[in-house]
Structures are given as C-alpha cells and as structure tokens.
C-alpha cells in the first residue's frame, strides 16, 4: 500500500525536521542555495557536524546537493513538506469513527422498543 510508503516517508521527514539546527538550515536554504561553509556560519558547530545534519536532510529528500565539484551547493527540495501539510488528513479517521458511533447511536435511539429517549 502507498499508505505504508507515505508513512515511512513521513517518518523520515519528521525525523529530519525534529531538530532546530536542521530547521534553521532549511529556512536558510529557502532563501537560496548555499554551500556547507555558508550554512555553518550562523552556528557554533563544526563543519563535520553541519555536514551530518545536511546528510540527514538529504536522506529525507529535503535537500539536494549538486555534484559540481568543490562548491557543492545545497538546495532545498520542499516536496516532502507537501505531504506534511496534508497531515491533518490523519485526523479524518478520528472523525470517521465518531460518526460511525453517532450513526449507531442514532439507530439505537430510534428503535421504539428499547430507548428511554422521549419522542418529541
């Protein structure tokens, strides 16, 4: 099922975003491409540490690194974020279940024999 794939994908995206440094990196990239040195600038982190964060973002498909030698700029790929913006859909089953119960309850109420519900 694609649902399972989507779930796995969401897990990756969520895990990648579950870190303030990585979110800051994404915000920076939203303004335009940047290389590792530029991305590291605002942080009190070593280059290897920043590189590690970028790798996590790459794995989640949020960042693409150009293969242009040396400079290797990072660019943002916001595609996985689109899945998250529709994440509210996960609440659909909650409401579906509620309405299923409402439906059953309505039937129960309207059975003349066994309800204490006044028929007004």
């Amino acid at each position, binding site marked *: 099922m694609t649902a399972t794939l989507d779930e796995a994908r969401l897990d990756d995206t969520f895990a990648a975003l579950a870190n303030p440094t990585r979110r800051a990196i994404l915000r920076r990239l939203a303004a335009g491409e940047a290389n590792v040195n530029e991305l590291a600038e605002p942080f009190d982190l070593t280059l290897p540490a920043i590189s590690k964060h970028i790798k996590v973002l790459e794995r989640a498909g949020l960042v693409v690194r150009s293969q242009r030698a040396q400079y290797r700029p990072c660019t943002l790929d916001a595609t996985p974020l689109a899945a998250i913006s529709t994440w509210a859909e996960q609440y659909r089953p909650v409401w579906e279940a509620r309405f299923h119960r409402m439906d059953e*309850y*309505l039937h129960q109420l309207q059975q003349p024999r066994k309800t204490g519900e006044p028929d007004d």
Partner: protein
Amino acid sequence: MTENRAANDAVMIERMLDAPVDLVWRMWTEPEHFAAWYGPDGATIPVANMDVRVGGSRLVCMEMQTPNGTMRMWFTGEYREVVANERLVYTECMSDENGNVLSPAEMGMPEGHPALTEVTVDIANVDGRTKMVMTHTGIPADSPGATGWTMAFTKLVAYIETQRSR
C-alpha cells in the same frame, strides 16, 4: 469556499444519517447525546457543558485510561453560529478544567501553534434523512505530541512557501 485551505489543513466529512435533522442537531447540542458518540473508543466524556447560542461557551472533558493512569483533557471554545437544525459553528482549544485557555507553550507545543481550531457542522433534511457535512479547520488539538509537530512543520512549510514565491 476556501478549497485550498480545506485541502491543506482541514478535515471535511459528509455523511447521510438515518435520522431526522432535529435529532442530528441534538447530537451536537445536548451533552448526553454528544457524550454518547464523541469520545474516541476507550474514552468517556464526563463533562460537556454547552451554552449553545452565539457567543456562548463550551467546555468538554475527555477522559481516557492510559498505562500511566487516568488522563483528562479539557477543551473549551465558543459558539460562533447557531442556526437550529441547519448550521453550528464552534471553536475549540485546549484548556484547563476551568476553561482557561492553555497557551501552546503550556501544552509543550512549539511556538506558532494556533490555539484555536473551528468545527462547522451543516445539516439538511433529505427526504426524512439528514445530510451532514462537518469541517474541522486547522489542526485538531487532541494529540499534543503529534499536533505540536504538525504545527511546527506547517509553520515551516508556510514560511518556505512565502520565501519561494518572492
């Protein structure tokens, strides 16, 4: 209709119910009926105070048993539109048992979490049955952890979209 909004951060559900509209209306507006169907499986609704008139307030308690004991969550809100047997609009946010709205920070949510969501229920008679359309706009606040994340991401997505469209 704001279709983009509905597609992005709202849940819309349409149902045909085998009941007259006035009974369906009471499902939403009378505590004992509301409590009978609203809570998730395994949860109860020990409190449902509903002052169903425009500007009137509501306070609903959801109680569930967890491995860590009984967990109670409170939701408050205000009725915004009340047209009997037609349309009900109310807001919802997390609160304490006195209906004091809890800020996102107090709930351990990231900054930028909207404290408020809105539920709209439209019902209409169709040959003695009832067509019901429910729209829950915003991110429901009934899952603190997940909701917190969702909002952080929604904010980030929104930010990124604005940056990209410049």
